[in-house]
């Protein structure tokens, strides 16, 4: 019962110790910081891939039959979301990183602005190209035989090709512009004007869309994000190193602590065992494990006042073996010892829990029977002990017959003194022996006569 309680307390203690160490580890280790940095690096990777997707969509605007501005805009929206996440995750980092992220934000918004400019140009450029293409086709079929116009149209066609090529960074040789048409009709001049106007428009558009495109493939952006990546990686390495050292320290500390505790516990247990051993050997009989004479007087000293107080009776049964000597003589001391052990078992099982048994001599035993109301109770207990213990003892196939002679004295009826109590019981026991052995005798004042 006490042992389980102790184990329970120990388990709880070690649990709380582990918790405390773990808590301290979490509180003082660099784990959180390291994870945050790691997180932000992963987010930067997300951001970069969102940026790449955005670039791909921008490229597609250039190559798709029908440019879908929704696609590139939603790529931009996704990029912005990743950017927000990235900003959140780096919000507590050191200043140089803050500055870099701020720059990145500026570059991103510049890129968005360039994208918007570019998309505007793409729409108009497409329409201009389309317009010119149909217009030239139309004029060609209308003025098939008009030399003047045809010369101009050939020039315009070439110019259109040059512009389309220059839109793809291919620079063709310019043709000389034909002289103003003198003989042209008003209608023809109007057509020429329109073509020229759209050619001019297209030229501007191509220039603008070049500029816009250059703006969103900004090498500065690449450099900055690479730089940011490196910086984050380096603070990650730093933080991780700090974390590692703290971790090893905590681990070492815990290991040492555990070892110390285990050693201490072992020591404590050992100490407990020796002290307990000493204590029990002082008051018990090594052969039977029953209490000895010393403990008898100790107990009597305590029991007498307590019985006085409670006004109850205390009986002392003096037990002596009849025929033990002959068992020793015929079967040897081994069997004698075994007999004593068996007897002490029988005695123990035949008394109540609160009663105590003492071996005070070779074959002499005392039983203190507590809290009695009447003398008869003591006698009946003694009687039942007798019937139990007078039965034959089977020891190593030898059947041994011993009986008990019991003398009973009673506190306070016979005496109030411990020594006398013992003496009277002894006298009563002798009376039993004299009266034929194997019986119970209660002391009375004229027992000796």
């Amino acid at each position, binding site marked *: 019962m006490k042992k389980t309680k102790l184990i329970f307390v120990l388990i709880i203690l070690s649990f709380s110790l582990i918790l405390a160490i773990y808590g301290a580890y979490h509180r003082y280790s660099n784990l959180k910081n390291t994870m945050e940095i790691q997180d932000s690096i992963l987010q930067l990777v997300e951001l970069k891939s969102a940026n790449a997707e955005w670039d*791909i969509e921008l*490229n*597609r605007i*250039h*190559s*798709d*039959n*029908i440019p*879908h*501005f*929704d696609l590139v*805009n*939603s790529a931009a*929206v996704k990029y*912005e979301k990743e950017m927000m996440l990235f900003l959140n995750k780096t919000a507590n980092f050191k200043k140089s990183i803050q500055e870099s992220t701020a720059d990145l934000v500026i570059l991103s918004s510049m890129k968005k602005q360039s994208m*918007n*400019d570019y*998309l*505007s140009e*793409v*729409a*108009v*450029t*497409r*329409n201009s*190209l*389309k*317009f010119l*293409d149909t217009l030239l086709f139309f004029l060609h079929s209308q003025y098939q035989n008009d030399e003047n116009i045809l010369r101009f149209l050939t020039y315009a066609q070439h110019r259109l090709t040059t512009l*389309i090529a220059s*839109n*793809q960074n291919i620079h063709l040789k310019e043709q000389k512009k034909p002289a103003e048409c003198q003989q042209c009709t008003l209608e023809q001049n109007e057509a020429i004007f*329109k073509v020229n*106007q*759209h050619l001019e*428009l297209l030229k501007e558009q191509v220039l603008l869309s070049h500029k816009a495109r250059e703006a969103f493939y900004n090498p500065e952006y690449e450099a900055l994000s690479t730089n940011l990546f490196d910086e984050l990686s380096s603070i990650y390495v730093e933080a991780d190193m700090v974390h590692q050292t703290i971790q090893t320290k905590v681990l070492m500390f815990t290991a040492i602590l555990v070892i110390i505790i285990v050693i201490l516990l072992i020591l404590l247990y050992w100490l407990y065992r020796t002290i307990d051993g000493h204590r029990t050997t002082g008051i018990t009989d090594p052969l039977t494990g029953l209490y000895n004479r010393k403990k008898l007087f100790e107990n009597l000293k305590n029991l007498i006042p307590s019985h006085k107080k409670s006004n109850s009776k205390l009986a002392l049964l003096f037990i002596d073996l009849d025929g033990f000597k002959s068992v020793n003589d015929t079967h040897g001391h081994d069997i004698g010892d075994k007999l004593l052990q068996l007897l002490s078992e029988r005695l123990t099982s035949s008394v109540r829990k609160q009663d105590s048994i003492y071996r005070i001599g070779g074959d002499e035993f005392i039983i203190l029977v507590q809290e009695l109301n009447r003398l008869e109770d003591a006698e009946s207990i003694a009687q039942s002990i007798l019937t139990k213990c007078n039965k034959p003892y089977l020891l190593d196939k030898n059947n041994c017959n011993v009986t008990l002679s019991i003398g009973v004295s009673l506190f306070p009826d016979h005496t109030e003194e411990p020594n006398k109590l013992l003496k009277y019981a002894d006298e009563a026991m002798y009376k039993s022996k004299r009266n034929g052995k194997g019986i119970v005798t209660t002391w009375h004042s004229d027992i000796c006569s």
Partner: protein
Amino acid sequence: MSYIYLSTNKLEKINIYSILTQLNNLLRTHALTYFYLKSYFTKLIVIVVLASIAFQSLASEPILPILKKKHLNNKKFELGKLLFVDTRLSKNQDRSCHSCHNLALGGADGLKKPVNLAFNSPTILNVSKNYYIGWKGEYSQLKPQLEMILQKPDVMGTDWAFVIPAFKKDQLYSKLFSSIYNYGISKENIIDAILYYESNLILPSKFDEFLLGDNDAISLSAKQGYNNFKDYGCASCHQGANVGGNIFQELGVVLPYKGIIGQYKTEKLRVPSLRNVAKTAPYFSDGTVKSLKKAIEIMAKHQLGQKLTDTEIDQIADFLKSLDSIME
């Protein structure tokens, strides 16, 4: 008719990428199909190829169909709708969002410009399909724009110190808010509910049905109008899911535009969405053009340098009418 190509090498790479993204999108959006297909691997290939062909044919149109939102939180949507028409949210309790964005008038107000405001009111329908918000496209998200209009005295000028106690006394609101939100009525939750309403106010049109394969959803004239719209190049600017709302242009790229009475201030604007345009007269940012046909004519002249015939204009107008949301 495409003039501008990257080198063929790059083009191939991009096409592979685009097919992969399409596959990915398809699988992601149709998780069920995905599981179904997983067990029938051969069918996977067939269906994915079919679906990507379908997607390709959609993607080759400059206008993409929109779909009604599924799995709406109806309670929250209804709450947003109540707030949308609640005049208590305005400074003098004389107007609500609905005053200037009347759903019966195609989500706008039919006025040239609201008092004290610089621009004509745009439609609120399908507004979340725009990539840029407002005529100048200053916002790319609805939330900051909503916070701005609630705060701006000339639009709403919400007096929160009045609104919150008033709503708390309102039994219907108390019930609705506490059943939807953890902390009941608060500024954040009111904004959130309006936001939920306006971002889910997506109403497809007959034209979307046409794009999704119902050939008879729109009239022949509207179909021809759509072809004109593409051929003349309107679709270069008015395109995408919202037929606009995704790039910036000024009015007058080919021929400068002075306005009906010569006061038009040319500036870069977000190309407006043309969904519900037939119902949202008057037109343009200054709201000076009353008829749709006039607006089309001006567009063709100043943005494209084209003069359209009356039939072409009628056809384009019919096409634009087919973009009206189907209201239930």
